[in-house]
């Protein structure tokens, strides 16, 4: 079974982690191939010629790219422990919020991380607004209900990266007092057994993002 399924990922990418979590939840065995993005393997370039990015899931020799596409593929191929809701309307809601996460929330938080001066202030305002919208969506323990589902995996990066970003840029992005539900969700998600064993080492992450942050500071000096 393991030879049939391979996952090209990196040690730190939240996009790759989504797939690791999904496969764990479903109890699926696979071979993990850790890529060095400065020296991408010939297989990766062959499997994802358009974007040359991870994650790539390779099932029986056939590659699937883009983490959200991979999540849906996994859910449709292995039916146990469903990640997405069954009802078409609920499914549409999950997809809507996933899109919001990728196209609005994540870029707004990334802009705070990379930005400076006025830009950073504006980005912070927007990021907080986006987090408020997300806070309103939490009705139960997880976005998926009582159990972790698709949306929890999509937003999972918040549970470990927000705190790393805050340390690196020395700025409070996330006021737990303002976001009690999201705060509780982050803790529950962080500690969940299917999730927790896969967290990348925090100190390594801090170093990585410190280096990245410096690059952005020097590339774009404050205006």
């Amino acid at each position: 079974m393991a030879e049939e399924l391979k996952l090209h990922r990196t040690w730190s990418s939240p996009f790759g982690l989504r797939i690791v979590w999904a496969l764990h939840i479903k109890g699926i065995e696979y071979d993990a191939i850790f890529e060095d993005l400065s020296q991408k393997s010939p297989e990766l370039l062959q499997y994802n010629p358009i974007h040359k990015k991870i994650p790539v899931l390779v099932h029986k020799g056939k590659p699937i790219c883009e983490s959200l596409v991979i999540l849906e593929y996994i859910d449709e191929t292995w039916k146990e422990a469903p990640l997405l809701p069954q009802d078409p309307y609920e499914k549409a809601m999950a997809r809507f919020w996933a899109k919001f996460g990728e196209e609005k929330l994540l870029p707004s938080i990334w802009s705070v991380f990379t930005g400076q001066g006025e830009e950073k202030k504006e980005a912070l305002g927007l990021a907080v607004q986006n987090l408020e919208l997300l806070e309103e969506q939490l009705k139960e323990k997880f976005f998926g209900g009582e159990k972790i589902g698709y949306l929890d995996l999509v937003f999972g990066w918040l549970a470990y990266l927000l705190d790393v970003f805050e340390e690196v840029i020395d700025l409070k992005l996330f006021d737990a007092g303002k976001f009690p539900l999201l705060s509780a969700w982050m803790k529950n998600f962080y500690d969940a057994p299917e999730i927790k064993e896969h967290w990348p080492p925090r100190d390594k992450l801090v170093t990585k993002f410190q280096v990245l942050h410096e690059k952005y500071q020097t590339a774009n000096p404050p205006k």
Partner: protein
Amino acid sequence: MISEDKNHHLKRKNKSSTQLIEMAEVKLLGVGGSSYSRRVEWALKIKGVKYEFTEEDLQSKSPLLLESNPVHKKIPVLIHNCKAICESMVILEYIDETFEGPSILPQDPYERAIARFWAKFLDGKCLEAVGKALWSKFGEEEEKSKQEAYEVLKIVDNELKDKKFIGGDNIGFVDVAANYIPFWLEIVEEATGVVLVTSEKFPHLCAWRDEYLNCSEVKENLPDRDTMLGFFKAKVLAATVAK
């Protein structure tokens, strides 16, 4: 689940109230000139679903629109059984899963993954690069944007080498996602004077465009070309003045 049969059964009972139910069951808040809005219309046409279309004035959005899409306040919004679904690509999947009729997405999980990958590429990176290049006279780096647009268009052209449509023999999810290219792109080219697509450069893309515009679901459901051209020419004028 709405099906043609179910509607037919209801019709026999009480025509006028059924018509109201039928009309009210599927509503689309959209804008005739928007490619995003037309994606949803063509998907509904593929399925043979009757719907009530409301043309929104984006300068004066209706309370229904603002209530149905509080997060983005954008069209298109599909309202089905009083529940609102937003984001055209999300709506497309919803339509495919909810209504009977010809499939918009393939059945096989791997084929579906490929379709979703291509739809994401076309709706995202591709559209972005093309849009940037078309308006590059008013932005930065005209030559660079054009090169980037050629690259993404070549990828699409290659994908169409042995196929009538990206979806195969019939238009499907990916073709509908790519709808800007066969219709709107050429009009914007005329308005801005930036030509990206030629049959020498992208022969398969051009062949696909001709087939696409001939599909019954599309042909009878396009905005008026002259109106669209007028709209884009006005945008060009505004951009010129701004520069």
